[in-house]
């Protein structure tokens, strides 16, 4: 793969934990690759499978959904629904041949700036060798 290939990642971050954790990474001046563009949602439970399919369709090379750890959801149980729903999405995407690394989910608390940073670093590292995502992408 070309050295200058930069994967494009959309990250759906829940407002209360993961977006706050990402803020903490900023406040702590941690550094991670700029390949990820965040979209703040209220809760990981609100992330529809359609968002994920759509992101890949519009050209994302990777999609991340991040929410509060189990038991810590600001809305009590939204992340549990997300966990179940997105597990199915992941299995389905793998089944149609999308590389398993392209769709990821994580629990990042408001205190886990380091974890968020590491997740993004790893994600970019894992996506690079795969090259651009073309399977769901319109007009690749």
């Amino acid at each position, binding site marked *: 793969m070309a050295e200058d290939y930069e994967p494009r990642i959309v990250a759906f971050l829940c407002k209360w934990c993961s977006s706050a954790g990402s803020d903490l990474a900023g406040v702590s001046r941690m550094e991670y690759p700029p390949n990820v563009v965040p979209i*703040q949602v209220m809760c990981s439970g609100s992330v529809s499978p359609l968002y994920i399919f759509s*992101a890949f369709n519009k050209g994302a090379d990777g999609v991340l959904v991040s929410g509060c750890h189990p038991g810590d959801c600001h809305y009590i149980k939204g992340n549990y629904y997300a966990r179940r729903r997105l597990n199915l999405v992941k299995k389905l995407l793998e089944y149609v041949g999308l590389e398993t690394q392209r769709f990821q989910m994580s629990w990042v608390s408001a205190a886990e700036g380091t974890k968020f940073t590491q997740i993004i670093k790893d994600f970019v590292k894992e996506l690079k060798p795969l090259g651009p995502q073309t399977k769901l992408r319109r007009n690749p």
Partner: protein
Amino acid sequence: MKRTGVFICHCGINIAGTVDVKKVAEELAKHPSVVHAEDYVYMCSDPGQNLIEQAIREKKLDGVVVACCSPNLHETTFRNAAKRAGLNSFRCEIANIREQCSWVHKDKPKATQKATKIARSAVEKVRQNESLDALSVPVTRRALVVGGGISGLQAALDIANTGFEVILVERNPSVGGHMIQLSETFPTLDCSQCILTPKMVEVSKHPKIKLMTYSEVQDVSGYVGNFKVKILKKPTYVDPAKCTLCDECTKVCPIVVPNEFDLGLTGRRAIYIPFPQAIPASYTLDDKNCPDPFTTIACGKCADVCNPKAIDFDQKPEIIEAEVGVIIVATGYDLYDKENMAEYGFGKYADVLDGLQFERLCSASGPTMGQILRPSDHKEPKEVVFIQCSGSRDPENHCAYCSKICCMYTAKHAMLYKHHVHDGQAYIFYIDIRSGGKGYEEFVQRAVEEDGVVYLRGKVSKVFEEKGKIMVWGVDTLTGRSIEIAADMVVLAQAMRPSTGAQELAKKLKLALDKDGFLAEAHPKLRPVESVTAGMFLAGAAQAPKDIPEAVAQASGAAAKAVAILSQDRLFHSPTVAKVISNLCTGCGMCVAVCPYDALTLKDGKVEVNEVLCEGCGTCTATCLRSAIQVKNLTQQQVAEMINACLGG
């Protein structure tokens, strides 16, 4: 919306150091719905805010995006600025290009590109934002407290003392809860009844508190500030106003049943007063046992001897409806059921007791008038074995959690025993000693040093009766020796469980329970006294095992939270709540099932949103198969465009 303004903050060099803010403004100006884009060194400063206000007025902006720091910091600042210029505050959105961009990247062109995407995505969002006004509802300035134990009493008093009305509902004939059964309390050994009864009296006399004993909550509807409750008042068949407490009725009553207050160590009549200091001070005719279920005839002897004619057999259950603004649930605990501890001979041998029974034996008002005697033969026990963690910390067989107070009360029990029986010996089997708390560790040390209590680290393997003794086999894991004690009495520190009926009540109140059946708090760290439902609060052992000072503290905390609501005329609520696109809704109810706040209901085959209950989490949105439910100002349409913006360019 077609007239969006974009304002890019340099934040000194915090943003401008890594992001080419001019370039971002330039790029954003190309967006078809952006009519104004500018950058400024500190947007949050007064001149910065003025720029925004001025642009809104001059360019008739109908949407504003401020690309700056995290929305947690200045969203309110900029929304207020927008509002001052006559723009609805919900038409202002923040693009976080500092914490989530400039501070975490070094490559300027790439950071600039990313900041552009973040800002564009915010433009897409704001373009479709609706103007919204905060929702507001009036508040019924009255509280309901469920449970008349120490937590409920404390919460009721704290609220009433601020001047708001309180309805206190207790299902037993008297308030007092488990605390009134205790003899002395750790770590100070002051008399439990002596410190509790003044509070009970205060509650009963308080002009702002309506005490409803022998009553149960039947139904709750409504939402924060506006709950409607139905309370079932069970008949006591005795008019407390007329009753003189002469006690003639109990003398003639022929029916004897186990006394709940003494945990079955004594009996009571079918007409009874639970304990002498009961509040309200009155008798109750227990209609489960009178008339005798076998003869089904009420003998009427009590009424015959009642001079003031206080007994009224015609009393009927009453349903009392009330409106309240907040609800505090303080339903307390029960001890782990005896049936479950057959391994320790509990329920099989009369001299194997639980902690509360032992409290009664120690109590001056108890069945033995404060003398510690074996229930089986009324002899003084000379060797007593106390077993901690009886049912606690045993995930395989019993409860996984630690019941928290047992270490302390067992130390107290052993100490009290030694104070009564100076030549006796107390043994305590324990797993760990958990004595965190003010004066607690010293208290345990005192038990060991002053009262010679023998602590044995290990589990008891077998308890059985032999020649009038209760044989206790166990292992001291510190020495590795097996231990055999021929005890006269065994006291089990039973695990604490949520009180019976709490689960049923939780269902009525639509409160969540944790995996052990205790009421779930809204957040384990940050919102420990709030329930998951707005306007409902938790106090005492109903939420988790806790001791008296903790229960009192939580009760006061819950009261303060309750008063914070009651002290307002109206409650305001974020308007970014769910809305239903009715033509698309098929009424399948999937969203209703996932809503954590019971904000959704099915009516005539369509879903309806109770906006006051909705917190706008959007889990319903992702669940709906037909996109028929959307959160205002973060609709799927908006997210779809945001996704597009994040990937474009």
